[in-house]
């Protein structure tokens, strides 16, 4: 029977490695807080886990994300939606690989950098697009549980860290929901209130509501 003469060395390595890992965790997690570095001038994400507060905040967030101003560009299919009834976009423009449309039907062909004057004319933004084909970030049809899980998953949220999610509330295309052009309803709360709920949700741990409450 072969004898493993390297056993003491391996044991030492494992113990040393575990000690190092523990030291690293101790450095990162202090008094139940988890901090993530934030760029200068941005809100810093310090997580203080509170599942009840987190779920309550997300349900407010969910009402905004499922409003037409947000959900219409996060469709379950490859055609954007329009209107407060979420009907398919007239002309049936396609998502395209990069989310910016195809051929003569690219978003920016009609959607200008600013809103076009007049009721129900194309709303504008310099960065108008759907999520790309390889990460569709669907809102339509998602339950609060499903949507919260999706947003917290980098593999489904555009590879965003929690810190980047925090900053995403101020993204130009997100903010555009509150300046949608004439004839369109606004999301169900102000942008400031949305940012507060979004921030609370993330800072209390980004918990998802129960799947079957």
């Amino acid at each position, binding site marked *: 029977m072969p004898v493993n003469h390297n056993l003491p060395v391996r044991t030492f390595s494992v113990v040393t490695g575990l000690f190092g890992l523990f030291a690293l965790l101790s450095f990162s997690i202090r008094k139940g807080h988890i901090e993530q570095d934030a760029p200068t001038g941005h809100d810093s994400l310090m997580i203080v886990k509170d599942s009840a507060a987190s779920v309550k905040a997300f349900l407010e967030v969910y009402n905004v994300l499922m409003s037409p101003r947000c959900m219409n560009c996060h469709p379950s299919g490859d055609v954007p939606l329009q209107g407060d009834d979420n009907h398919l976009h007239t*002309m049936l423009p396609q998502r395209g690989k990069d989310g910016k449309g195809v051929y*003569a039907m690219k978003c920016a062909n*009609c959607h200008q950098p600013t809103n*076009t004057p007049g009721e129900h004319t194309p709303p504008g933004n310099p960065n108008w697009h759907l999520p790309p084909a390889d990460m569709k970030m669907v809102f339509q049809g998602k339950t609060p549980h499903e949507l919260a899980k999706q947003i917290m998953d980098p593999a489904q949220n555009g590879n965003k860290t929690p810190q980047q999610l925090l900053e995403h509330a101020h993204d130009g295309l997100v903010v555009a929901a509150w300046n949608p052009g004439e004839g369109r309803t606004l999301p169900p709360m102000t942008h400031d209130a949305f940012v507060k709920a979004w921030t609370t949700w993330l800072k209390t741990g980004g918990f998802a509501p129960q799947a079957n409450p």
Partner: protein
Amino acid sequence: MIRLTVNQKTHKVDVDPDMPLLWVIRDIIGLTGTKYGCGVAQCGACVVHLNGEAVRSCVTKVSRAANQKIVTIEGLSLHNDHPLQQAWAEIDVPQCGYCQSGQLMSAAVLLKENPQPDDAAIDAAMSGNLCRCGTYPRIRKAIHRAAELQQEAGKKPF
């Protein structure tokens, strides 16, 4: 004063920066091949190329086109011999013709990006161009024919 290049010719126009590009093209520069249809980017009659993209000139402010390259139906080819124009004539696509310059400009972007489009690609590209005469079957046929002509001539896509 706003400077823009239309069909490879530079123009300086003294207009409100918010004026629709369509107004500048038709009323200031005098190129009337591009048509006014709905005025709200819903019909496609006003499509021109802005740096190669098929923008709707009725809702595009001229300020967006400043110092950029614009091509109108008059500049699609030097001698009206773009494969699409040849195919359009061969198949006798237009009925009243009002929407056709927009149709051609949209189809040109399709053929540039997809030299051999199938029916699905044609539908995806052309679904924003309306034709009250219902020439859609002939438009689709002519785009297929133009793709053949382009390939036969060994031409690079326009």
